[in-house]
């Protein structure tokens, strides 16, 4: 292999790795706050990519109907779980989140989609469709199980994953889609030809990582989220609703997944079930970080991207096998080290 090929593979690896890093951060976040190992993370990527690609063609993505269906399910769940405590404000908050907002997004999409207002508007619409799905799924599937064990939550997560893949097939059909890039610019850097889209990906990843760092490191809200994650009992003692923290975490997970999808839509053809493999690679990185460390997870994600890209050069048929084998020694090492981090005492 010569240096040029090495650099090209490296570039590929870093760009893919950036996407995995976003997903890994989201997985760590969701696990830290809710103890859910969020297997369906990848579905948001697929839904984000497919919604964006459909909007890009000037058509209305059918994911808005999925959003409305999830909203209806969440309304019913919310009414049932809060049946004893529901007052006017709680009802208004519930309905604005599960009914008014999804309806508004659907209306906006129906109105704007045929107008083809350009990539920026289309990307924002795709994000607006998929982001709230995270929140609604939390309400339907995970909030009622908040006190369950990690294993039960994992089983629920697998169930949600299977359901979403099925719904993905129903709503998007079996064909793959690809969208136009945010910019057609191409930069030459020595032997490398860097597509503008790669820079968008790296830029958004950096922006999101910095944003999350500032939010969790410096705002009271972000710090409260972290605090409640490690000290659930302390939170309940002072009346902090841990369900709000869960909703924020899942909302962010929806957003990060959707954004990843919009970012990769111009680079690869995405199918309704493409999300799983992409999410799994983010998951590998999150596991390397023990599901607790953001910096280790992000670094590991870049490494996973690079392993994948080099593996596809040397042994493309075994690319996935090689990527997922990497996790075995890591799991061994983690299990040999001291046990999992317990709740703060």
């Amino acid at each position, binding site marked *: 292999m010569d240096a040029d090929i090495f650099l090209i593979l490296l570039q590929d690896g870093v760009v893919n790795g950036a996407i995995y890093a976003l997903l890994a951060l989201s997985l760590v976040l969701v696990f830290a706050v809710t103890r859910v190992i969020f297997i369906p993370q990848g579905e948001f990527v697929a839904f984000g990519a497919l919604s964006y690609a459909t909007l890009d063609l000037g058509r209305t993505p059918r994911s808005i109907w999925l959003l409305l269906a999830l909203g209806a399910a969440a309304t019913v769940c919310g009414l049932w779980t809060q049946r004893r405590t529901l007052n006017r404000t709680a009802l208004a908050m519930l309905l604005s989140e599960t009914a008014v907002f999804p309806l508004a997004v659907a209306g906006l999409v129906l109105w704007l989609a045929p107008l083809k207002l350009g990539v920026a508007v289309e990307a924002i619409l795709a994000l607006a469709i998929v982001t709230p799905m995270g929140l609604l799924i939390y309400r339907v599937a995970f909030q009622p199980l908040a006190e369950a064990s990690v294993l039960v939550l994992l089983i629920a997560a697998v169930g949600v994953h299977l359901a979403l893949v099925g719904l993905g097939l129903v709503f998007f059909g079996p064909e793959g889609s690809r969208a136009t890039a945010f910019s057609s610019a191409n930069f030459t850097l020595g032997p490398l030809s860097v597509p503008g889209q790669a820079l968008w990906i790296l830029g958004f990843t950096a922006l999101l990582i910095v944003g999350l760092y500032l939010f969790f490191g410096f705002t*009271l809200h972000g710090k*409260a989220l*972290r605090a409640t994650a*490690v*000290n659930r009992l*302390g939170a309940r*003692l002072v009346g902090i609703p841990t369900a709000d923290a869960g909703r924020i975490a899942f909302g962010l997970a929806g957003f990060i997944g959707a954004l990843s999808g919009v970012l990769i839509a111009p680079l690869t053809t995405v199918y309704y079930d493409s999300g799983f493999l992409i999410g799994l690679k983010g998951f590998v990185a999150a596991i390397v970080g023990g599901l607790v460390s953001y910096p280790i997870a992000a670094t590991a994600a870049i490494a996973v991207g690079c392993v994948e890209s080099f593996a596809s050069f040397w042994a493309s048929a075994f690319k996935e096998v090689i990527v997922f084998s990497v996790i075995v020694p890591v799991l061994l090492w983690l299990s040999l080290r001291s046990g999992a981090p317990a709740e*703060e*005492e």
Partner: protein
Amino acid sequence: MAEAFLEVENLNTYYGDSHILKDLSFKIRRGETVALLGRNGVGKTTTLKSIVGWVPPRSGRVSFEGRNVTGQEMMKNARLGISLVPEERRIFTNLTVFENLKLATVTAQKPGWSLQDVYDHFPRLQERATNKGDEISGGEKQMLAIARALVQDTKLLLLDEPTEGLAPLIVREVEAIIREIKSKGMTILLVEQNFYSALAVADRCYIIDQGTIKFEGTPDQLRGNTEVLSRYLHV
């Protein structure tokens, strides 16, 4: 007896198969400071945890201001104004003293003490405002845990061994704070091993043994009852 502020009736609480609280009943009136005394492992902490819903009782009833709150979620009880300061304090160690207080303030249903009130009564907390929860002493953690309850609109303060493990000087400081809070009209249920400390502030006391109340009376009645003292408290 005037209408009870907190009424606990025939509580039965279990950890798995072990029956800890056995038909436990007692009452607290508004504005009273009541001490719950007893030897190690008799169920004092379990009583507090049953009241706030941390360990929901299997049977019995807890009413607060006439409202049935038995086994209700801890968070909801906190919002009704029942605040437990547990033995292990459970402040947020990754937040500063100030952030701990601020967070309690913004999540309160109704405001209680202002931050300035807190700093006036706990000057140590003001000095340590920018230190993280794991960078302060045990006594300061205890003060922070109490202060955190005060900035919320706490109506009933449940304190589990607030002076445990503290140096004598700090013990006196914490006692002074409890007396101060009491003088402002707070209703307090105080669990203590430190019998003298508890009797110094309590209006009434209960002794618990093997999960049931064995004695009820004023501190003077208890001081005069050597049989009860030696039998249940080994003093």
